[in-house]
């Protein structure tokens, strides 16, 4: 347990670096975990080369879901949007530096789910153009 609430996670929860909304933005996506009511929105700005120039999250949830969103949005800044596809559960757990029970894993992975839905949605939209 003490592992779960490592200082890094508490710090990220209480003083997130990437909390906010981007206006304007190129991509936005919002989803929730209906089991616990956690809500999360991620906004991205993407340059013409497909690089994520800015990312931010907003929403309401537990320390694990919020810290995970903060770490993830920080991590993807400056990276190609294409790299989002390859991000996995293991990457999130590595960022958090903790092990999680199956129920709390859902909290940690909400941010990745929202990010991928947003990124793929836009990609598919572009392909159609």
């Amino acid at each position: 347990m003490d592992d779960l609430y490592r200082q890094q996670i508490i710090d990220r929860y209480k003083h997130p670096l990437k909390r906010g909304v981007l206006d304007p933005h190129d991509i936005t996506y919002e989803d929730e975990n209906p089991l616990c009511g956690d809500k999360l929105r991620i906004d991205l700005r993407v340059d013409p080369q497909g690089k994520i120039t800015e990312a931010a999250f907003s929403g309401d949830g537990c320390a694990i879901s919020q810290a995970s969103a903060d770490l993830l949005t920080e991590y993807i800044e400056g990276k190609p949007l294409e790299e989002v596809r390859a991000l996995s559960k293991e990457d999130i757990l590595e960022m958090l530096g903790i092990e999680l029970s199956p129920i709390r894993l859902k909290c940690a992975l909400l941010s990745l789910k929202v990010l991928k839905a947003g990124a793929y949605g836009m990609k598919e939209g572009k392909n159609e153009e």
Partner: protein
Amino acid sequence: MKAETPSRQYVIDIQRIRADFPILKRQIKPGIPLVYLDSAASSQKPDAVIDAMSDYYRNHHANIHRAVHTLAEEATGMYEAARAKIAACIGAQPTEIIFTKNATEAINLVAQSWGRSNLKAGDRILLSEMEHHSNLVPWQILAKERDLQLDFIPLTDQGELDLDECDNFLARSPKLVAVTQMSNVLGTIVPIRDIVRRAHSAGARVMVDAAQSAPHMAIDVRDLDADFLACSSHKMCGPTGIGALYGKTEILHDMPPFLGGGDMIRKVDWRSFEPNDLPYTFEAGTPAIAEAVGWGAAVDYLTAIGFDGIHRHETAIAAYAMESLREIPGITVLGPEPSKRGGVVAFTLEGIHPHDIAQILDSYGIAVRAGHHCAMPLHTKLGLSATTRASFYIYSTFEEVDALAAGLQKARAIFA
């Protein structure tokens, strides 16, 4: 910390009761005993219930009704004896008790059988803002199918039902009023007898969701004059998988079958059937026999302690919990004062999400529930996405409340 004030006096023999529940000896981790504060979700089981079910399977099991062999007669006798115990517990006749899977199925039975044969487009159903999803969604399904209107008795700021508003909604002549007897979030005990009287004057039938109240207080369906009442075994020391619907005989008599199959028929030919007598006409298929036996044992166990003592014990623990929690900075306790509630205390702690609170408490062996407790509209109304809920039962102690308060202080320290 706290002095031995009169508020810590037990009104029941707590040590003897705790000794009856084997799981209370469990350590969650080595040296960390279980502090079980999630009884509103499901209560723990005494030896009397576990042994009754074991004895049934070891010595008496067969399928019930019709067969003539010894085991079938014994099993049938035990199943029907359980029905009689549950009926007596709530002041009903055994023929008025229909065994279901749980309280949820009991409510769905009323919606699908009584509702479909008695409600037509434009009819209204009056619910309340504190209903559990189980007494909300079955009516939403029916409302969509039959084009019915749902109204909701609002809450007062004190977390009670606004009875003046109830009268205003009753003036719109609903066909049915379906309300809980005790909120699983706010703990509020609802004045059902008063609501039934008002509803009957307005010509409405009344369905009572007693899933939360039946474990904790004496219920007399004749005194309440309820038309239907649903309750569940697993919240009152019995096994999961069985609940009951009480219905007044004359109403049940006119209701079409709910589920079709064996046991609910008297006679079947290729294209039609003749339904069985009450209550069997609503019990299709092989029922939960061992679970009925276990529930009967649970009712015996609770009756021997006495519902008056059970209720006074829980009120004392809840009052003590509210007092203890309010000393913690940043805590907001939901719901009314102790005299108007059962053993449920839901709260928020500023700056810490309920899931994190529950997780930290678990590391100290304390089991509480975090989330919306199957009452999402109520949480939305209160402007909360989730709350933490501690709920108490006959085996809960003042020391466990102290452990909860200490655990919450530790959570505050972690998030400081």
